[in-house]
């Protein structure tokens, strides 16, 4: 028998109906909603007079637009405020649970899902946000959708999908000092490119992946979408099961035991290769701390490398992309990465705002202060509960003593929909996931890095080789 991949198993378990051309109606176990991509979906429901199919399978939170300071004063921007209020009103109208800004459980949608046990192994999970791939870290089939599909999932608890192909990315061996989950995934994207995973679901495996904590696995799967794959996956093991035990929405008692038995089968039947359409092997020991230099996540190099030279690129489309990126980023070909000076530092986002990320950043500071040349360092925890945990551990004191700003949870400067943003021309070391033009503010220049690298850069005022310092 040929066996199945983890993706095959998850897919097969959710097929409701198959059309002649192979497209399927897939059952959705959990939908997460936020304020930006849901208002038009609720409008659609109202216009057609439809009701949500299973209200309790939806969970909502406002994260993209919320302020990270002075919460008690509400949202100053009237357009943002209306969007957040619209979510609240829609949730009230339909009886959907929402964690509002005053709720300790509020946070970034992809942080609170696993934290609450609202997203579990074996589920199909959708959200109107491309970083829904994060939840694949728990062996759930999770992917981002557009607003029409948000409405479709609300109305039918299903989506029409065509099965993707299977890709295995195996990161073998052990990573070196200063190398984190973020560096692993940036190195993968640097190698396969932002379109490398188009049409695939990527399962990440190998010892360097399986030895990661749940937080690290979420960082890796979060950026599957930056490699072009709608969904990333990591198999269930004891780390997964231990993580979910006792979570508020996780099953209890006999249900827990039954769920664990089911979850333990959520891995590919073989990792030798026969089951996958494509396999990429990566040597973990060869990965160094990563820094992106350009305007696409694939424009990334090791911290001890130099900014690339477009004249050495043979492909004209790629050469033009490099030239344009260098111009936008204000960098010179051949410039050392460690010579790039930072104006701001952002530690947060659905990629890197979990407790482990905050601990890693705090560990780098060692009683030092941010460089005088760095204007602002924002630390934005992923949820109210993470904030509480970090404060219980005294991390907030370490950050504020270093002149870092300790903020309230939300998406914040990852996409700058709230007041946290870059000014034109500013360079930012950011633990987020996208370095597109204007992403963190009009004319802003983003460098994607790990939390440890971001903290080290905040102290030094430029990137440093943390592999040597560690």
């Amino acid at each position, binding site marked *: 028998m040929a066996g199945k991949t983890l993706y095959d198993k998850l897919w097969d378990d959710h097929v409701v*109906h198959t059309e*002649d051309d192979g*497209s399927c109606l897939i059952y959705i176990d959990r939908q997460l909603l936020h304020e930006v991509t849901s208002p038009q979906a609720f409008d659609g429901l109202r216009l057609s007079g439809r009701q949500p199919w299973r209200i309790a399978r939806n969970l909502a939170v406002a994260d993209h637009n919320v302020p990270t300071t002075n919460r008690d004063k509400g949202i100053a921007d009237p357009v943002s405020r209306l969007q957040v209020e619209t979510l609240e009103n829609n949730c009230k109208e339909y009886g959907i649970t929402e964690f509002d800004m005053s709720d300790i459980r509020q946070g970034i949608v992809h942080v609170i899902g696993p934290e609450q046990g609202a997203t579990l192994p074996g589920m199909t999970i959708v959200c109107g946000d491309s970083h829904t791939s994060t939840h694949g870290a728990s062996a759930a089939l999770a992917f981002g959708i557009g*607003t*029409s599909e948000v*409405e479709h999932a609300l109305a039918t608890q299903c989506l*029409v999908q*065509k099965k993707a192909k299977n890709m295995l990315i195996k990161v073998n061996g052990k990573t070196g000092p200063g190398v984190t989950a973020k560096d692993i995934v940036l190195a993968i994207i640097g190698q396969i490119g*932002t379109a490398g995973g188009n049409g695939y679901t990527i399962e990440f495996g190998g010892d360097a992946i399986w030895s990661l904590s749940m937080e690290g696995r979420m960082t890796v799967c979060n950026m599957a979408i930056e490699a072009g794959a709608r969904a990333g996956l990591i198999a269930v093991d004891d780390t997964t099961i231990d993580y979910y035990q006792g979570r508020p929405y996780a099953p209890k008692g006999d249900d827990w035991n039954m769920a664990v038995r089911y979850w333990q089968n959520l891995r590919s039947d073989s990792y030798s290769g026969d089951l996958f359409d494509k396999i990429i092997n990566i040597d973990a020991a060869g990965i160094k701390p990563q820094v992106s230099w350009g305007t696409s996540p694939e424009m990334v190099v090791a911290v001890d490398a130099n900014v690339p030279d477009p004249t050495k690129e043979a492909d004209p489309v790629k050469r033009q992309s490099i030239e344009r990126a260098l111009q936008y980023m204000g960098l010179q070909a051949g410039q050392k990465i460690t010579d790039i000076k930072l104006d701001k530092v952002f530690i947060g986002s659905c990629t890197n705002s979990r407790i482990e990320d905050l601990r890693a950043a705090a560990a780098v500071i060692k009683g030092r202060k941010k460089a005088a040349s760095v204007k602002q360092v924002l630390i934005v925890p992923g949820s109210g509960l993470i904030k509480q945990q970090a404060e219980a551990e005294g991390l907030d004191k370490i950050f504020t003593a270093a002149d870092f700003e300790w903020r309230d949870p939300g998406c914040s400067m990852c996409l700058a929909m709230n007041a946290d943003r870059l000014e034109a021309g500013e360079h930012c070391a950011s633990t987020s996931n996208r370095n597109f033009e204007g992403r963190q503010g009009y004319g802003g220049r983003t460098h994607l890095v790990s939390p440890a690298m971001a903290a080290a850069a905040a102290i030094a005022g430029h990137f440093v080789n943390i592999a040597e310092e560690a």
Partner: protein
Amino acid sequence: MKAFTTLTALVAPLDRANIDTDAIIPKQFLKSIRRAGFGPYLFDEWRYLDRGEPEMDCTNRPLNKDFVLNQAKYQGAQILLTRENFGCGSSREHAPWALEDYGFRAIIAPSFADIFFNNCFKNGILPIVLPAETVDQLFQEVVDGYQLTIDLQAQTITTPSGRNIAFIVDENRRFRLMNGLDDIALSLQHADKIKSYEVERAKRAPWLFKDA
């Protein structure tokens, strides 16, 4: 949703790879709770010289004359010709909403990002995948007034010289787009199947069916 059958229209060439949804419609415009009105802000940071804000009147904003969509010869274009991995990044359906509101009904590229590709079909936009060499050739052929005819029924593109280029769209998607069908209504035709799936699944995974 508007049905798509045939289209004869002007082509605008946007010669960049990896155009992301942040470039197609920057985040500040995502604060709108409406589905329409995004067209004036399409490619906002490339199209204008100033910084765009939601609900801004764009009629007197300074235009970036170098940007292709601002050139007189491409006014009224309904077909966008572009490069690899178009629509990468965020899942925002505001991207196809903005393209559609601007007037684009078809996009030709060597590849698309998956979520964007899917979102196009929900909004009456036809994304067409062609081999990179064919796209290259079209880029070379685009001149003043260059029009293509797209026939979704026949799955062909006809160039001004009469050359036919074949393309393929999944049968299910083609049918829905050609008829402008409401996906939800179609899926609800399977309501009984959804209910029996739930009954069956609740036996295997009861913890997923204890809705409070």
